[in-house]
């Protein structure tokens, strides 16, 4: 399998291979060796505050965790097991009802076991982040649990 075959297959099968991403209806929008980008269409059940029409911050975190894992696999460049070690998310502004969430994550440093990831989340304009995040992930080429 060539590199480009791997990334094409990954983009196609990533969401369907993970039950919770499938349940939420996430989509892979783009990826390559340096980044992963996904989106999450709006649903009423994402709301965290019914009065003010805001998306729950936990939904933002779930997307970040998903795209962070994707970015790690992208950086590794082949199938691997990934587990989140820690995650920190700053909610810069509320995510509002009715619009999809978009997230782009990049792996900026890899060791033989750990991947360090940064991510951004936005709704309308990519320049208008509603959250930024960073996290550490463990990765392993073995398919057994890594944590």
């Amino acid at each position, binding site marked *: 399998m060539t590199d480009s075959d791997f990334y094409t297959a990954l983009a196609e099968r990533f969401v369907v291979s993970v039950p919770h*991403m499938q349940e939420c209806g996430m989509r892979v929008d783009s990826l390559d060796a340096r980044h992963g980008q996904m989106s999450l269409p709006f649903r009423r059940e994402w*709301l965290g505050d*019914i009065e003010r029409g805001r998306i729950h911050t936990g939904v933002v*975190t779930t997307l970040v965790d998903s795209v962070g894992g994707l970015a790690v696999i992208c950086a590794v460049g082949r199938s691997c*097991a990934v*587990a989140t070690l820690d*995650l920190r998310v700053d909610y810069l502004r509320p995510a509002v009802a009715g619009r999809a969430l978009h997230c782009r994550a990049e792996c900026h440093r890899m060791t033989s076991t750990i991947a360090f990831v940064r991510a951004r989340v936005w709704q309308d304009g990519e320049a208008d982040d509603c959250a930024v995040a960073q996290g550490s992930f463990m990765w392993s080429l073995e398919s057994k649990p890594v944590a």
Partner: protein
Amino acid sequence: MNLGAWGEARRRAREQGDFSALIALIPYAGFLGVQVRLEEGEPRFRLPYRPSFIGAVAAKRLHGGVTAGFLENAATLHLLLTQDEPRVPKSIDFSIDYLRGGEAAELHASCSLVRQGRRVALVQVRCWQDDSREVALARVHFLLSNPAGDGT
């Protein structure tokens, strides 16, 4: 302005142990299926397992976002139930450390209010499975509602 909905939902939760109205105001808590009960006056949180919570099929581990989302809900509900916030407090930031992979089983959580200032509160959340298997530790900074009630 519908401040009454939160107040009424909280009253039912505190006095009758009925958390359904509170959860109904937070659709994502309902989507996950977060459950609350009071144990000696302290809120305890539970998330029943379902197969769609899995994030790693081969290892059969929970998606990290499920655990994180559950703990953010627990922190928010803890603050609503133990303090007199007029509505859902806004999260400023969230941080989580995963201690072990979450097994395909229900999650439990309890919270402590580490610090409450005039405008900001820090809530720490502990998450475990099977009585004592610690799965994650998290903390959330909340921006508290303006006492004047201007909605900021």
